[in-house]
């Protein structure tokens, strides 16, 4: 029995060890060090590791989540105001373009588009803005850069930025912005917007060609961008620079609020270009240098990314506005207070939704999205169809945040296809009939848990050009009944189908059934139910839908070559302007002919003419009239089945404040405020360790081991 005692003693010691180990913190299950319990740290998660943090390259939302806090373009979106409004960030003011004719003469403020040969944006940045501390700026007593000429010996043992003993800073100057614009043309960076910007910034194409030539001539050499001129970007003085745009491109102003146009100091490229840096992942792509409220203190995309407050941040205050709803929602309580509020933000990699959701409920994440698995646990719908939190969420003082995304999902018709394409009246009617049959109100209810709004056109809510309510309905698919928007009846769809030459889903001339093909990348059990639903929609018209599943590459290839017939696609806005959605239907952007973004290959002359007019107009009644005319054309032609505008649902704990969905701004971390004391007390309350299972386990083990040991001994004795 002494052996049994020893085993039990060991198990007991293990339990004590566990207790001691967890005793460093109030909660045993905390994933954070005990010292952080009451720290002013915001905890969040990311599910996909970022690929690029270089402002010339990063474009995805999971990348901009970080770069947006570190880099500062000249402009930003007002955190609270709607519709989205641009305000200065590092600039003194939002620049107004000056227009010039082909002879270089200045034009008046509102010239005709045809007269404009060039637009010039002059941006004046505020003096005194400093970069984050970084070894690239460190100088010795003689003023020489400490780390700009490192050899292998000096690089030995340096694997992280914090391994460099000295850091420095310097003032932000206009040349840093111009330097970054040149970087967009660097072939070694493959900036995703180089092609687009080449169409607009004067001389960018030529710069790209010159850089490419230089890169090919010396593949190993670093390209010194100061040796290459860019006609379309000039430094006027220490704090002023100009960007020259071909013709008129009013949407360019929105690009000035994206990290693509944030400053990059030349010292950064010199520092990171040194031998041995890239091998240790010390590159600008992974170790950003900015002037923003935060800097990247820890960069382990496999585990966690940590942003810390930039000690040199130039200072900014929480905005105010006159919106009553914001005041009532408590969004204005911090107006005028200095930003940022949070000292540190820890982003942990969470690939799976189950641990992510559990940690949110335990209080270890301050906010969370809602996955389909946990939707019913978090949200219920009232009798009026409004989303509400469940009682269990409300008991935890969890708050629901909803917003309609600046995105649209659609089912595209390939307009080059002989069956569903073309602009003839019969084809229009066929597509209109199919648009009615696809009941996206039902789809949103079944597959999205109500997280979407049936789309009435390409422009989502919140953008200029979108018309709310009955006045904005798509009359070819919906109708107003008793002041409500209702989908047109199936009878209407059947009638349209018959008029299109397919009575009861059969070709009027040959009698053959109408068979359509839907190309999709979706696969797996979840996708199957969605695809079955799609087939069911067309069954209602006696039309057969054949689903052609394929992988991402082949799908892209089919769309590029125009081999698809029906396909599902979506678009997220780059900026809050209707041009960013209508251009998806602009004829000269056809996918097949030009490789553009018009995947449906729609090409209507009148629509194209109106688009060219609308894109250069300022927001106002005249522009709205043009937009209305364009909407009428695309609704009638129906190159897309306008599916839905997705609605994002998020949750936040009661200790997290200043959370207002802003789908355009990517630098919102600085506005977040937390109450660490409240969080610590809630975590302690929710995560008290339950010890009886350990006792039960010890007891169960004893109950199993003791008789076995006794039997063992008895057997040993009997054998002896």
């Amino acid at each position: 029995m002494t052996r049994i005692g020893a085993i039990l003693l060991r198990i007991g010691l293990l339990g004590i060890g566990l207790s001691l180990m967890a005793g460093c913190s109030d909660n045993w299950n905390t994933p954070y060090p005990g010292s952080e319990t009451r720290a002013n740290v915001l905890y969040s998660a990311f599910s996909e590791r970022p690929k690029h943090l270089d402002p010339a390259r990063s474009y995805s939302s999971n990348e901009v989540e970080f770069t947006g806090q570190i880099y500062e373009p000249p402009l930003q979106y007002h955190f609270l105001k709607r519709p989205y409004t641009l305000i200065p960030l590092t600039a003194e003011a939002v620049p107004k373009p000056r227009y010039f004719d082909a002879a270089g003469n200045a034009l008046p403020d509102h010239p005709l588009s045809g007269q404009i040969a060039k637009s010039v944006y002059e941006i004046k940045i505020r003096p005194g803005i400093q970069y984050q501390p970084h070894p690239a700026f460190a100088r010795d007593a003689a003023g020489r850069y400490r780390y700009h000429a490192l050899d292998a010996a000096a690089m030995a043992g340096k694997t992280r930025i914090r391994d460099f003993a000295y850091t420095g800073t310097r003032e932000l100057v206009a040349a840093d912005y111009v330097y970054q614009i040149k970087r967009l043309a660097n072939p070694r960076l493959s900036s995703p917007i180089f092609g687009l910007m080449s169409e607009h910034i004067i001389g960018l194409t030529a710069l790209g060609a010159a850089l490419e030539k230089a890169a090919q001539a010396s593949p190993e050499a670093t390209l010194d961008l100061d040796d290459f001129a860019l006609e379309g970007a000039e430094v006027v003085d220490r704090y002023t620079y100009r960007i020259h745009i071909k013709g008129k491109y009013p949407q360019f102003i929105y690009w000035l609020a994206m990290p693509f146009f944030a400053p990059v100091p030349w010292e950064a490229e010199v520092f990171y270009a040194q031998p041995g840096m890239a091998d240790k992942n010390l590159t600008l792509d992974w170790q950003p240098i900015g002037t923003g409220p935060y800097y990247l203190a820890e960069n382990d995309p496999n585990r966690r990314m940590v942003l810390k407050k930039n000690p040199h941040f130039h200072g900014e205050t929480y905005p105010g506005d006159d919106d009553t709803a914001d005041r009532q929602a408590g969004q204005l309580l911090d107006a005028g207070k200095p930003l940022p509020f949070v000292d540190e933000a820890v982003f942990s990699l969470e690939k799976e939704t189950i641990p992510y959701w559990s940690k949110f409920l335990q209080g270890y994440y301050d906010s969370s999205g809602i996955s389909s698995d946990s939707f019913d646990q978090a949200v219920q719908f009232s009798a009026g169809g409004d989303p509400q939190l469940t009682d269990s969420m409300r008991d935890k003082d969890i708050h629901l945040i909803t917003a309609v995304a600046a995105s649209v999902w659609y089912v595209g018709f390939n307009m080059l296809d002989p069956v569903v394409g073309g602009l003839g009246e019969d084809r229009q009617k066929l597509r209109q009939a199919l648009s009615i049959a696809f009941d996206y109100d039902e789809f949103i209810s079944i597959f999205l848990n109500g997280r979407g709004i049936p789309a009435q056109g390409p422009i989502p809510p919140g953008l200029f050009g979108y018309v709310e309510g009955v006045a904005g309905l798509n009359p070819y698919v919906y109708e107003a009944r008793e002041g409500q928007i209702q989908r047109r009846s199936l009878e209407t769809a059947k009638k349209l189908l018959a008029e299109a030459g397919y009575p009861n889903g059969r070709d009027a001339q040959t009698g053959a059934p109408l068979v359509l093909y839907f190309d999709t990348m979706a696969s797996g059990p979840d996708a199957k139910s969605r695809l079955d639903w799609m087939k069911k929609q067309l069954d209602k018209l006696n039309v057969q839908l054949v689903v052609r599943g394929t992988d991402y590459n082949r799908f892209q290839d089919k769309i590029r070559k125009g081999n698809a017939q029906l396909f599902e696609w979506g678009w997220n806005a780059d900026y809050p302007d209707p041009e960013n959605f209508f251009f998806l239907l602009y004829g000269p952007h056809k996918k097949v002919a030009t490789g553009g973004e018009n995947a449906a290959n729609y090409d209507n002359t009148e629509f194209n003419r109106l688009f060219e007019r609308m894109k250069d107009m300022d927001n106002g009644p005249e522009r709205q009239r043009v937009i209305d005319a364009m909407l009428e054309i695309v609704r009638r032609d129906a190159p897309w089945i306008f599916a839905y505008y997705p609605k994002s649902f998020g949750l936040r704990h009661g200790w997290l404040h200043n959370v207002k969905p802003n789908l355009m701004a990517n630098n919102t971390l600085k506005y977040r405020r937390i109450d660490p004391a409240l969080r610590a007390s809630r975590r302690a309350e929710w995560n008290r360790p339950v010890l009886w299972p350990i006792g039960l386990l010890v007891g169960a083990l004893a109950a199993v081991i003791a008789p076995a040991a006794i039997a063992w001994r008895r057997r040993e004795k009997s054998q002896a």
Partner: protein
Amino acid sequence: MFAYILRRLLYAVPILIGVNLLTFALFFVVNTPDDMARLQLGAKHVTPEAIERWKVEHGYDKPLLLNAKATGSAQLTDTIFFQRSAAMFAFEFGKGDDGRNIGNEIRTRMGPSLAIALPVFVIGLLVNITFALLMVFFRATYLDLWGVVLCVVLMSISGLFYIIAGQYFIAKLWNLLPISGFAGGIDGLRFILLPVLVSVMAGIGSGARWYRTIFLEEIGKDYVRTARAKGLSEVRVLFRHVLKNGMIPILTGAVVVLPLLFMGSLITESFFGIPGLGSYTIDAIQAQDFAVVRAMVFLGSLLYIVGLLLTDISYSWVDPRVRLQ
């Protein structure tokens, strides 16, 4: 033995070239360099020029296997296959398409993978062998019967269930351990406990049952009868004789996986937030990052070859009758 090891290592070279060629062929049957460029450049505003530039910058502008435009040996060497493969034999894996150094990434991720895999392997082996020996000791009794039933039940349950149940009960309901996460040093111990516990539990059923079969086969042999006839206790018979003679099949299964422990476990690491190598290959396949896929397949093949070699060597260690020639 040295000559044998050297010969086996030399055999590995053509095997690795073959594996590399196969990986290359399979990868590029599914993905073209244009597809890779499109995925890396994102879904928006991608122009044909941008695709060409990306290919040039990443070395995918060359022919795949044979450069008909080149002359002499350059026909073979000025190709994607050669330029992307040759350096690997010097363990120069280059960079992934995201610009991160692959060798650095592997070194960084290997530690967390081992932090889970090694304890799971050692503890799992000990627990399984002990459990199997106990069942053998109590063979033909109700304890053996219920032990086997328990094993069958345990092995019938999906590995994912153990993870979800472990996280639910231990981390969420009883708040005893963190549900996921990782930390270096001693603080990392509390993150490792749950995945190790869950992984060991998930492996008991199949492991213990297999070892029980091995030991039962041994226990019926003449040398065991002789040992008992000499008056040795059952414990000595089991641990001194049966265990030692049962080691060959155990080693076959155990030693071969030893080097592969570096590669980590996809599901365990994913659910427990372990920044290991488990998901590196899968993520790379999804991102169409050929450089990483090729490096990981190469490394996996190499480790497997090393594992097989170690198994052969261990045979001669546990069984003096085995001679390596």
